[in-house]
C-alpha cells in the first residue's frame, strides 16, 4: 500500500495572488504620484526607485549589503545555538528556568537603542558590537520559545519513557526535543525578524556602515529614491531569510495534519 500522506501542492492561485496584489500596488502607486503631483522627496515613483537603485547598486549598496548580511547571519546563527543551549539547560533544572526567565524577558523588552550608547563606550566602532546587539536581541526570543516547547510535554509521553526506564538524555533526545520542534521553529522565525531589526537599529545608532546607516544617510541627503530602494531591499532580505527557515520547517515537521 502506498504512502497515505499527500504531498502539499502549491496551487497556481496561491502563487499568483500575492504577485497580482504586488502589481496592483505598484500601479496604484505610480498613478497616485503622477496624479497628485507628489513631491519626489515624500513619495518617489516606483520606476525611478528601481532605475536609480540598479544604477547605484554595485558602488553604494553591495558592500554595505555584504556587511549587513554578515552581521545579521553571524548574529542569528550564534543566537540560535546559545538560545537552544540555554533552553536545554533550563529544561533540566527548574531552578535555572525560574532564575533565568526574568532576565531573558528583560533583554527582550529593553530596546537595544538604549543600550547601544553604553556599548559604544566599551567597544567604540568595533563591528563585533553590532553582532553582539543582534545576539542580545535575538537569543531571548529563541530561548523563550524553545523553553516553552521543551516544557509542554504530555504527561503520558513522559510515563511512556519511564515505563521503559529511559535515561534523562534518552528522554530529552527522543521525546522532549522532537516534541518541541514546532515551537522551536516559531522562535527561529521570530528570530529572523528580530535579528534584522536589531542590525538595522544598531546601524542607525552607530553609523559608518551597514544598510541601516545607508538608509538614514540617503534620507538626510533627500535621496529618497535610494532610501526607499534600500528599505525595500532590507524587507526582501528579511522575507527570504524567513522563507528559508519556513522551508526547513516544512521539511522537518512532516507529522502535523
Amino acid at each position: 500500500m502506498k504512502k497515505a500522506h499527500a504531498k502539499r501542492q502549491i496551487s497556481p492561485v496561491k502563487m499568483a495572488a500575492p504577485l497580482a496584489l504586488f502589481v496592483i500596488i505598484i500601479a496604484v502607486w505610480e498613478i497616485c504620484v503622477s496624479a497628485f503631483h507628489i513631491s519626489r522627496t515624500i513619495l518617489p515613483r516606483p520606476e525611478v526607485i528601481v532605475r536609480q537603485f540598479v544604477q547605484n547598486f554595485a558602488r553604494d549598496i553591495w558592500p554595505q549589503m555584504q556587511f549587513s548580511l554578515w552581521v545579521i547571519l553571524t548574529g542569528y546563527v550564534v543566537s540560535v545555538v546559545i538560545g537552544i543551549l540555554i533552553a536545554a539547560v533550563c529544561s533540566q533544572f527548574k531552578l535555572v528556568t525560574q532564575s533565568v526567565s526574568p532576565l531573558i524577558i528583560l533583554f527582550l523588552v529593553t530596546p537595544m537603542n538604549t543600550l547601544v550608547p553604553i556599548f559604544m563606550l566599551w567597544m567604540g566602532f568595533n563591528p563585533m558590537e553590532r553582532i553582539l546587539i543582534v545576539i542580545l536581541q535575538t537569543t531571548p526570543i529563541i530561548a523563550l520559545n524553545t523553553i516553552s516547547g521543551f516544557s509542554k510535554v504530555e504527561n503520558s509521553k513522559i510515563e511512556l519513557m519511564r515505563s521503559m526506564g529511559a535515561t534523562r538524555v534518552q528522554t530529552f533526545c527522543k521525546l522532549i526535543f522532537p516534541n518541541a520542534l514546532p515551537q522551536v521553529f516559531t522562535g527561529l522565525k521570530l528570530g529572523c525578524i528580530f535579528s534584522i531589526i536589531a542590525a538595522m537599529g544598531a546601524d542607525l545608532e552607530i553609523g559608518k556602515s551597514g544598510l541601516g546607516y545607508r538608509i538614514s544617510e540617503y534620507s538626510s541627503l533627500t535621496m529618497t529614491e535610494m532610501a526607499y530602494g534600500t528599505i525595500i531591499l532590507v524587507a526582501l532580505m528579511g522575507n527570504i531569510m524567513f522563507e528559508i527557515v519556513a522551508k526547513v520547517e516544512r521539511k522537518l515537521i512532516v507529522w502535523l495534519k
Partner: protein
Amino acid sequence: MFNESLFELNAIRKQYGSGNTLVTVLDKIDFSVREGEFVCIMGASGSGKSTLLRIMGGIEKQTAGKIRINNNWYKDGIPPMERRDFGYVFQQDNLLAWRTTEKNVNLPLEIFGYKGKQWKDRIAEMLDLVGLLNYKECYPHELSGGMRQRASIARALVHDPKALLLDQPFGALDAITRKELGYRLLKIWKETGKTVVMITNSVDEALLLASRIIVLSSAPAKICHIIENDIPYQDRDESLSDNFEYKRLHEQLSNIVRGTETTDQPEKEFARKLA
C-alpha cells in the same frame, strides 16, 4: 497449564500526600502472577487499578510493600533495568507523533540498545502480528484509534518482554473496534504465550480473555474477589455469549463489580483536600 509465579506483589500500599491530605489509594495488595496467565483487574473507576498497574510497570513507586521479579525483591519501585521485562500499553494511544509506525515500534529497541538483524526483523514480525505491516510508513495522525492501539501493542511486544501490562487499552475506542481488538488480543496471547495483566471495565472483555479475574474494592483498595475463569479457551469465540458458564460468571462478576461502586473517589478526594 501455568507455571511458577513470574512476579509477586506483597503488602503493596500506595499513598499520596501527607498529614491531613494523606490519601490511601491501595491498602494492602497481595497477589502473584503465574507465567503464561492472563489476569484481568477490575473494579470501580478511581479504585486505584491504574495506580496498581503503574507500580507493577515501574512507572510509580509503592509507598510500602515489596515486589518480586526474577527472584529479586524490590521495596522502592522497580528499577529501570528490570522494566525491560515488561511491555506497557497505555489507555490513550501513546505513540510519538513525529515517528512512523515502524519507528514507533522501534522505540523500545533504541532505549534498551538492542541492535542487530534479529531485532530489526522482529519489528516487521510484530507489525504483522497486529496486522499493520502495510501501514509501517504512516504517521500516527494517519491511523485510526484502533490502529494506533494495535501499534502500541506491537511496540509493547517488540523487545520480547516476559509480561504485557495493559491499562484499559480499548477503553477509548468504539464498541465494534473494541470487540475486534479483544479477539485479536486473545489470538496474540495464544500465539506468543506471554503473561498478560490487563485492566478493564468490561465484564465481557474480562470473561473473553482472562484465566483469572481480580476485583479491587474502592479506595483504600484491597483485593475483594478473585474469580477463576474456567471456560476452556477453545470455546472462547463469537458464540461465547451462549455458553452457560459464561452467563453464570457474567452475572456473578457484574454484581461484584457493581457492588464495588461507591461515590467516594480517592483522586477527587485528594484534590478537594488540597484546594
